[in-house]
């Protein structure tokens, strides 16, 4: 199949990696497009951003897609690497991380919380395919309760970070994140506006973006790999904040916007170091 590059892909993405090797019908490309569209609308260029990715579907499929400098961390650790990198990079360089739900909310949650705590300038896009799909489809920490997956054949019955009134964004708000939002992949232009705000925050921003996985999650939970089913299912279980219904899993929109309300990690550290160097005290 011939692939025709659009203006946006040839400007920002590597032709070698686009289209990606994701499964047919995967919704990750919609999330990816939302982020790249936001970058474009902000007028940012390739040298302005260092792109980091993680392990799993979201990490592997987005690694090296960005035309500029990029890296992929070991599972869950990219938030710690990004903090070290933040210290070394000039403040005007943006760090965008496209990661998965297992990476951010499972193995990497400690590092994520500490990145929020320190308000390190990075925009974390958590592409949530509702579990560990690249390993075949096991439940994760945001998988809706009751879902059937390969490791929850009777339905996922554990308490998790999205069950019974719990929300992972509340944890991150408590930890000090300065921008938090949630969108599903079908939110389109609305999500682009939110991602733009996240990137513009000089501090820790996280946008949680559930997207459809027809191959594993869809086939186990809905009994079909039909893409339309899982797309509908995700859309029907999401609603804008304040308009939630009983069966809403994902309340979408900006959860918390305290952009630029407290000092950014690396700038604060460098200013303090400079003061110590000059005066011997803080």
């Amino acid at each position, binding site marked *: 199949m011939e692939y025709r590059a659009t203006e946006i892909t040839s400007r920002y993405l590597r032709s070698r990696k686009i289209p990606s090797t994701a499964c047919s019908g995967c919704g990750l490309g919609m999330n990816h497009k939302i982020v790249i569209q936001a970058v474009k609308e902000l007028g940012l260029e390739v040298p302005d951003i260092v792109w980091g990715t993680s392990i799993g579907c979201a990490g*592997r499929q987005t690694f090296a897609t960005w035309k500029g*400098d990029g890296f992929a961390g070991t599972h869950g650790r990219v938030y*710690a690497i990004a903090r*070290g*990198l933040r*210290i070394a990079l000039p403040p005007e360089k943006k760090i965008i991380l496209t990661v998965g739900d297992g990476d951010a909310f499972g193995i990497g949650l400690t590092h994520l919380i500490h990145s929020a705590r320190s308000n390190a300038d990075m925009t974390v896009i958590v592409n949530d395919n509702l579990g560990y799909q690249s390993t075949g489809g096991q439940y994760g920490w945001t998988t809706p309760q009751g879902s059937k997956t390969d490791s929850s054949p009777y339905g996922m019955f554990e308490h998790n970070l999205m069950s019974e009134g719990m929300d992972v964004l509340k944890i991150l708000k408590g930890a000090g994140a300065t921008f938090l939002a949630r969108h599903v992949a079908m939110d389109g232009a609305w999500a682009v506006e939110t991602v733009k705000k996240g990137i513009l925050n000089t501090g820790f921003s996280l946008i949680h973006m559930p997207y459809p996985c027809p191959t594993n999650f869809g086939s186990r939970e809905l009994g079909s790999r039909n893409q339309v089913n899982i797309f509908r299912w995700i859309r029907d279980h999401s609603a804008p904040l304040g308009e939630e219904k009983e069966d809403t899993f994902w309340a979408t929109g900006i959860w918390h916007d305290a952009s630029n309300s407290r000092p950014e990690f690396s700038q604060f*550290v460098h200013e303090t*170091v400079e003061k110590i*160097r000059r005066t011997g005290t803080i």
Partner: protein
Amino acid sequence: MKRFLETGNFAITEGAILAGCRFFAGYPITPATELAEAMSFRLPQEGGVYLQAEDETAAMHMCIGASLGGYKAMTATSGPGFILYADPYGWALGCETPLVVLNSGRVGPVSGITGAPGQGEFYLTRYPTQGGNFEAICLAPNSAQECMAMTVEAFYLSERFRMPVTVLADQLITDGFEDISVPENEEEMKKMGFRTWSRKIHQGPDFYPATDEIDIPPVVLGHNTGALCSDWTPTEEGYDIEEVEAHHKHAYRLIYKVRNHRDLFNHHYDKKFMDDDPDLIVVSYGTPSRVVNTAVSKARDEGLKVGALRLINLWPFPDEFFGAKTKYLAVELNWDGQLVREVQRAVPKDSEVHFLGSCGDLPTIPDLIETFEKVLKDEPLARKGWKLEAW
């Protein structure tokens, strides 16, 4: 030259600063905490950044991030933290990221005794991560002064080989107070044999050459070179790939860039009474080597033809020092015998290799001399009621 009565941790801090280190991330752990404390005091004075991490895994990953951004970076820990470095250590090896890691050994396994020296990570410094297909570099000082020298040397090697380098000390070396001379300028550094290498920035998007070449600048992000690095098998351009042939090239490089440049390591060792083909060569590194040196001198006074070989470059292991077909005794701070296995591998066929270990304590000079005598007379070894097999 400035002189101090200070600890090994102080010496490592000064050595790191002399080598150009301006980033340290660590997690408090006895007996490496004092190094983190010294760094938190000294680095800001030099315009450098000290960060306390949420755990050891994060500490080394933060160093990776800083190194990827162009800083010379270092972290320090003890055994229980070193095992948590396994994850980032592998990343730094695979992505050829220069870093220095200090491990101040205490007696284990697990938390063990926090305040007693141990040498339980001999093989862990050779295999600090999973997966294989790499060589590791490890230096083992035995004094505070040498801690400084080996820290400088570790930064030098890490830049030239594009890889993390471990400095393996132990609790007595990093916590002990000793006379330390700190050079104040480049001329004094040269006089003391310190070698330095400045950070260079890779100008191309290509990630690695499929050769054993060294002195290739590491990947530095943020310069818009289009550089890529990841934990997956890389293509020469840095793309991830699931392909055996690409992995062969990568593995070849990680192994042979070190193996084929061994001339860079050879001059780091210490010999005593080794010129007259001794009947027994006592092999050690780190703290026990100081006791061994004294014991060997005394044994010579008593007419025993004993020599001491102290290793400083532990990895790659200096096989070339083990050419003599004679008796060997490995003295180390563990009871399971780690160094001794490697000595046994390196010696000529049919050489005798013996082992004297201690576990949280140090061998005494009379103990050592008694052991030398027994080995020389082919008598079985035993110590403190524990029957130790001859290896």
